[in-house]
């Protein structure tokens, strides 16, 4: 614990940490000093002058440096003028008056001055109702203005700042919270001020405009309605919204969300999700979320949502009752016996996966995870210890990121790893090409695609950085699936786990292995006993398959062929997909907004989400559908309540022992204080009242040293002259069903592109922007060619989930499409 000092605020003596900002110290002591520009997560700026207070400091004797005493108390010296509390740090004996006549007059005048040029269009402002300027004017400000309305500054009303955020320059009070957030927190200084004085305005200095995946957070921080999101434009007034706690399903970070809902006429008066806001969880996402989480939720209200069960009759899918549909599926699965296969996707909750696994076990079938990434058994063994918080990593700690572009795969981890590096942690980025994280890395290591384990082994043997990693107080490794398939990632996970164990970085909080999984609950699937399968097409051919939350037909023609040869296919999905087209039975499932459940994040934190809106049509939660199917097979599984399923799960799976919904809903006070009552201080982020979640304890934490299974490494592929090595990479905005339905993100998704080095492009005579034909072993397709010199020569980067069926590295060729069509 840091040194405490005693200060006096408004006559009350309080103990606060030495060196903390005065506004934060006062907040800690329960005294609100009004602020606009100050934010507990940002460096002080002193831009708005709202926090004017009287500060007195004890007079020191110049000789002895001891306080001069007067009438038995230290003599206090006040400056003749008011000081900004935000830029002052507390010191021993400081006396602060926030409510004196002088201070109040200063705050009053500042507000009057800020309002001289504010348009006061609160009735149509999206921030109206959760606006700091409104709140503080009510508390501290004048009811009237002495200034002339004709002299107000006038700008063109909202101008788009990027395509997700609108900027209203008239409302801006120049607090620079957005500018500082982008610079200090996100590390992407894409905003800045232009001009001076009353003409001062925010501008984007990046191309494309506001090029950041954290842009939505600036609208949370904005103390006025200058930055609002395009998604929520005139959506509702904040006081009309209901709030329900949820968890983001877009990536394995598991950001805590609040879903704001309201009735909507367009959909016949149903309650819909109007906007997604971050919910504070200082150990997961702090108070931030990325734009994919904020704007990508629209798939739950897509027109393609399934609302009724379907059965195939005379080669056509026709509506059926739940009874008929589950009976058909149940009979076929029961008849299949050993040939029954459950194929589950990582979007499912722990409860769904547990019921599916139980069904597969009882029926004697197999349970497969639909994923190209393995290594889940290692995160169970040497995953990060319970109590891990990336915010605790700093000087003397180390983070290694291997084969992952965190910015694209898990933006909030990227942000938090970057901040750990800012605090002084050793950041080692091991990746075959340059990523955005490299800028913050202490050391970057490049390797050829396919040589990742070799690169790790060489790294661990020698060098200053390897020493730093080995001697670090705490060390965490993130491993991803950049350029790797199932066997590659399993091998990499094993190598990472070995490195961690050899250097003694397992079994403790803030130490261990984190998988950057492609989907939100892949970690949960591994915990419950699902395994991915390398030869998925063989595993599906001729079987009776129960596909839940996955679209293999749409993803891969080979799997489509395998499934067309399957005996029976039942598909349980949210939306119509290519897989539901070929199914014999289709079950409509409920989206995460419509039901409750739990997810396990990549950091192995089990977190609860709650139902915010009514279910669509006849859809049911996945675990309940599984229970209905099981019933038809003569197997009894809990299907009525998610919390009961979770109780059974906690009794059956050791990792979840002693967890319950009640425990997952526990909260504790967090710093900084945010929420509805403190919006002037922390922004419009919601406070966490519905649970912080609980981290699972890895085996290494209970048993010490564990045996790490060795994985046979497949030889790296080396393309011949004129051939390319196509490697899969992950991009944030892709054509996955959970992102593609959001109209706002369409521009960011774009078309499928293949990225190659300029010299490679020259060699095959193709220019940037031309359509190329890909012909690799098992991969045929067309994509736009993009030239990118960060890509190694002879390598083609092929994005996953963009309509190109790439699972693992392949060797083959690229050529200009015959029609020589220019890209759009």
């Amino acid at each position, binding site marked *: 614990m840091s040194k405490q000092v005693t200060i006096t605020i408004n006559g009350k003596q309080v103990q606060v940490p030495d060196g903390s900002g005065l506004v934060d110290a006062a907040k800690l002591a329960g005294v609100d000093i009004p602020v606009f520009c100050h934010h507990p997560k940002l460096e002080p700026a002193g831009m708005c002058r709202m926090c004017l207070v009287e500060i007195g400091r004890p007079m020191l004797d110049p000789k002895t440096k001891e306080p001069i005493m007067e009438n038995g108390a230290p003599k206090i010296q006040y400056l003749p003028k008011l000081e900004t509390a935000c830029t002052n740090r507390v010191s021993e004996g400081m006396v602060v008056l926030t409510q004196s006549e002088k201070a109040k007059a200063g705050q009053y005048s500042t507000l009057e001055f800020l309002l001289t040029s504010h348009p*006061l*269009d609160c*009735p*149509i402002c999206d921030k*109206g109702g959760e606006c700091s300027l409104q709140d503080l004017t009510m508390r501290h400000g004048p009811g009237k203005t002495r200034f002339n*309305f004709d002299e107000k500054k006038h700008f063109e*009303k*909202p101008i788009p700042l990027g395509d997700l955020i609108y900027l209203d320059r008239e409302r801006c009070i120049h607090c620079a919270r957005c500018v500082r957030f982008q610079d200090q927190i996100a590390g992407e200084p894409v905003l800045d001020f232009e001009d001076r004085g009353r003409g001062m305005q925010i501008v984007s200095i990046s191309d494309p405009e506001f090029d950041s995946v954290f842009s939505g957070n600036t609208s949370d921080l904005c103390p006025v309605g200058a930055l609002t999101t395009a998604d929520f*434009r*005139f959506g*509702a*007034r904040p*006081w*009309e919204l209901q709030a329900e706690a949820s968890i983001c399903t877009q990536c394995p970070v598991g950001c805590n969300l609040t879903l704001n809902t309201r*009735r*909507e*006429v367009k959909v016949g008066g149903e309650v819909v999700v109007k906007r997604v806001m971050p919910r504070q969880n200082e150990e997961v996402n702090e108070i931030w979320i990325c734009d994919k989480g904020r704007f990508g939720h629209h798939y739950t209200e897509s027109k393609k949502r399934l609302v009724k069960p379907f059965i195939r009759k005379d080669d056509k899918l026709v509506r059926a009752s739940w009874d008929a549909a589950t009976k058909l599926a149940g009979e076929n699965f029961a008849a299949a016996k050993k040939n029954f296969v459950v194929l589950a996707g990582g979007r499912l909750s722990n409860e769904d996966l547990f019921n599916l696994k139980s069904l597969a076990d009882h029926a004697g079938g197999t349970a497969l995870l639909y994923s190209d990434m393995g290594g889940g058994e290692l995160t169970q063994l040497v995953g990060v210890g319970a109590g891990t918080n990336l915010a605790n990593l700093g000087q003397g700690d180390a983070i290694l990121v291997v084969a992952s572009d965190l910015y694209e795969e898990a933006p909030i981890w990227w942000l938090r790893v970057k901040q750990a590096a800012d605090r002084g942690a050793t950041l080692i980025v091991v990746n075959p090409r340059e990523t955005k994280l490299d800028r913050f890395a202490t050391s970057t290591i490049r390797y050829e695609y396919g040589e990742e384990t070799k690169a790790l082994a060489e790294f661990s043997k020698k060098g200053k950085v390897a020493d730093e990693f080995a001697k670090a107080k705490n060390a965490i490794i993130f491993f991803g699936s950049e350029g790797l398939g199932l066997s590659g990632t399993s091998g990499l996970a094993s190598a990472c786990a070995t490195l961690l164990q050899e250097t003694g970085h397992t079994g403790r909080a803030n130490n261990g292995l984190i998988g950057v999984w492609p989907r939100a609950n892949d970690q949960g699937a591994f915990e419950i006993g699902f395994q991915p399968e390398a030869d998925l097409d063989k595993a599906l051919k001729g079987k009776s398959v129960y596909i839940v939350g996955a679209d293999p037909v749409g993803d891969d023609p080979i799997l489509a062929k395998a499934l067309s040869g399957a005996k029976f296919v039942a598909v349980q999905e949210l939306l119509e997909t290519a897989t539901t087209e070929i199914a014999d039975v289709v079950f409509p499932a409920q989206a995460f907004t419509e039901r409750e459940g739990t997810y396990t994040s990549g950091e192995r934190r089990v977190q609860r989400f709650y139902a915010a809106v009514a279910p669509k049509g006849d859809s049911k939660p996945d675990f309940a559908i599984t229970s209905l199917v099981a019933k038809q097979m003569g197997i009894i599984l809990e299907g009525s309540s998610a919390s009961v399923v979770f109780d059974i799960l906690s009794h059956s799976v050791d990792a979840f022992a002693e967890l319950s919904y009640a425990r997952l809903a526990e909260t504790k006070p967090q710093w900084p204080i945010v929420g509805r009552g403190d919006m002037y201080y922390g922004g419009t982020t919601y406070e966490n009242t519905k649970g912080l979640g609980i981290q699972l304890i890895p085996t290494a934490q209970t048993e010490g040293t564990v045996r790490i299974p060795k994985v046979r490494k497949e030889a790296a592929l080396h393309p011949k002259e004129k051939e390319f090595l196509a490697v899969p990479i992950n991009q944030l905005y892709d054509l996955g069903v959970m992102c593609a339905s959001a109209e706002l993100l369409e521009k960011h998704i774009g078309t499928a592109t293949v990225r190659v080095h300029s010299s490679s492009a020259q060699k095959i005579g193709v220019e940037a922007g031309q359509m190329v034909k890909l012909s690799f072993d098992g991969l045929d397709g067309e994509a736009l060619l993009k030239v990118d010199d960060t890509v190694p020569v002879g390598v083609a980067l092929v994005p996953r989930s963009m309509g190109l069926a790439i699972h693992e590295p392949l060797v083959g060729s690229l050529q200009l499409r015959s029609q020589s069509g220019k890209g759009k």
Partner: protein
Amino acid sequence: MGVFEPIIELSKGLGEVLRSFLFEKTVTYQYPEEKRPVRPRFRGRHVLNRYDNGLEKCIGCSLCAAACPSDAIFVEASENTDEKRFSPGERYASTYEINMLRCIYCGFCEDACPTEAITLGDNYELTFTDRKQALYTKDMLLEPVRATEMLTPQKTEPGVFTRSVPEMKNPTD
């Protein structure tokens, strides 16, 4: 008591009836053929007002709904463009509904309105035969226009109608 006394009293009474019948103005209104004028601050059925050019005064701010003590008003807003302009400024009410069964005619909505868009009018003749009829939608509440070109949405010159809230004077009545 004499014999004539009751007759005199009766005649007095009948005389009063005759006098008032012949010489006094009647106070009875032949409703519904004839309607009694309402007081200046009478609070009847709401009207959504328009500006002289036909643009709607309502900007969809939903403050009336917030002020409403009986939760009778539901507003949903959308964005104006110069191609399709409903009201001045950026925002207009794409949905405006008042549930007249819930309304208590308190007039708080009038007070809350920043543009004087909603006023409680003179109409007190509200009858319904089912609950759905009690839901007054925007078309029913909007003030009628004198000419069809004043109907909203209108196509307007860019840069003219940029302000949602007009400058206002204090009410005079």
